[in-house]
């Protein structure tokens, strides 16, 4: 019943962008950066730069003290952001500020459940700020019904993950509860790890896509245009994170870092579009 409700009120920005891309025969490019990294001044300008460089959807990390699924790059981003004292309320303010100039690009917050549990009426506040979806790294569907219903009531999608170790039976259950899109984790490991086996991933994602209309995007370990293009062949899009976060770590001036984000994402965009 809760699932039906989730499907009843899908997020319109996410739905629209995937419909558009499908019509154009293009693949979704999803970027990830951590909010407030390396300091709050970098975030909103960085998001706009990513859109300018060709990102279709924006993932924005909610900094957390114990990011247990992240590799060293994104762990360090969390630590830099938290050192600046960032809060979830500030993250929502950043989204609202971004929305003043961009009312189209979907924004998906990504993080850990304890951050969201700590904010009263999170769904209402996030929706009001202009958030479209949520990825909770440590919230499998078995535990997610309550949050998914709260989000759906505010037209936000709870995006579930499927991993290489997820069984067929379980994948079907996850797909039946999915909203927004499905995030396929391309490798057994943490964010930013290397050695994605694009052929293996392709076989699995292809099989999964045959069972659902919901878009399926691939993430974890995608560092360059070539890998992105290869993985996009058998999926609806790719997520790029650690390679962008490394740019955040490098720079000291928001304008310079933003240009670097834009160039990096544009390069991957080009690779994807040549493939399509």
């Amino acid at each position: 019943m809760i699932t039906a409700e989730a499907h009843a009120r899908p997020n319109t920005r996410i739905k629209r962008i995937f419909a558009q891309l499908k019509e154009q025969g293009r693949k979704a490019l999803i970027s990830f950066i951590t909010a407030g990294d390396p300091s709050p001044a970098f975030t909103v300008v960085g998001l706009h730069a990513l859109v300018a460089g060709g990102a279709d959807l924006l993932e924005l990390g909610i900094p957390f003290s114990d990011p247990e699924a992240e590799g060293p790059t994104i762990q360090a981003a969390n630590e830099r952001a938290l050192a600046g004292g960032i809060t979830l309320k500030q993250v929502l303010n950043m989204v609202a500020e971004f929305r003043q100039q961009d009312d189209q690009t979907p924004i998906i917050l990504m993080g850990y459940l304890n951050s969201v549990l700590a904010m009263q009426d999170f769904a209402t506040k996030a929706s009001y700020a202009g958030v479209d979806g949520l990825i909770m790294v440590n919230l499998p569907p078995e535990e997610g019904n309550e949050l998914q219903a709260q989000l759906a009531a505010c037209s936000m999608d709870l995006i579930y993950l499927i991993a290489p170790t997820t069984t067929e039976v379980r994948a079907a259950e996850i797909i039946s509860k999915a909203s927004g899109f499905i995030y396929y984790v391309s490798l057994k490991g943490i964010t930013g790890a290397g050695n994605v086996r694009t052929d293996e991933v392709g076989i699995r994602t292809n099989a999964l896509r045959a069972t659902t209309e919901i878009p399926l995007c691939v993430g974890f370990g995608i560092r360059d245009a070539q890998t992105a293009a290869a993985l996009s062949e058998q999926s609806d899009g790719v997520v790029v994170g650690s390679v962008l976060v490394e740019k955040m770590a490098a720079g000291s001036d928001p304008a310079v870092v933003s240009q670097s984000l834009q160039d990096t994402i544009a390069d991957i965009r080009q690779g994807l579009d040549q493939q399509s």
Partner: protein
Amino acid sequence: MSEAFESNNYAQPTEDGHFGEFGGRFVAETLTHALDDFAALYNQMKHDPEFKRELHHDLTHYVGRPTPLYLAERMTAELGGAAIYLKREDLNHTGAHKICNTIGQALLAKRMGKPRVIAETGAGQHGVATATVAARLGLECDVYMGEEDVRRQSLNVYRMKLMGARVIPVTSGSKTLKDALNEAMRDWVTNVDNTHYIIGTVAGPHPYPMVVRDFASIIGQEARAQMLEQEGRLPSVVVACVGGGSNAMGIFHPFINDLEVDLVGVEAGGLGIDTGAHAAPLNNGKVGVLHGNRSYLMSDDDGQIMETHSISAGLDYPGVGPEHSYLKDIGRATYSSATDDEAMHAFRILNQREGILPALETSHALAWVVANAPKMSKEDIILVNLSGRGDKDILTVADIDGITLI
């Protein structure tokens, strides 16, 4: 007390690992399959005569069980109230109750055909217990330990290395136990095909809180039988220290249906609960999700996990096993705290009156005894889980006394 209790039929957790609103499984999707496999194997093995025989054999001949139940006469006389019985878990091989769990889980790892085990450790006791069984069973072993703890617990670090384990210092976050747990989870998610993660306490995602509790429950099973044999009755109260809470769950669990027996857990009060520098989430925390389960937790208004303080590295953890949260909320157990100073005071009493060197973790349970035994009747009996020995803490204690040993 809840109605479920009046019928003496405690049966937790549910099939999917919930203790009321607590527990559950909050992990990255990649781990779900391994947790399902582990739970299925455990549910099968716990009824398997051959597995039970193997476990019992090792607990008897390798670990040295049953451990004694000892009446601390001079301590009882000094405090002048209830009789104090100590369940001597310090006499286990490797010096703490932790090995009862690591033996059980390592045997399960072997059955799963996994040649490698990993563990997190704070004080080093669980790391040592894991390295020990890995050496015994011929498993590869990596132990994650916060850089800060590697420095504080150099004796245990060397001990693990002597047994062939690799000790990996963790430099992220606060560089203590919680960060070691994060790093072990990251290792496991990467190497899940050939690796079993031996979690050392009754926390983590389902089925760990149940599995670790069950393996530790030998403590309470023995103590209950020994008490009936020696005194002909059950104790008035069972006391144990609580960090993650494995020794406490181990001794509490076989007494849960004995409603006349009070269960008391003692958390690390650090410099005092009101200072904020403590590790007592059941006394002063809020419900949240960390390391795979929902439980009481020390987190701030924004959900960030707070840094904790305790004189004892083994209690220096911001969370607590979900079953303790459940027992607290239904009123079956109560949870108090003891400060660093109170634990040190009790530590000295046990050394001087009984010739027993307790771990600093255990000294928190003893501090409750020091404060409460005098107020109780001489007819009352306190059963304390003397969960570990204090050899590992000698440098810390000497440092407090202003003495440099090395």
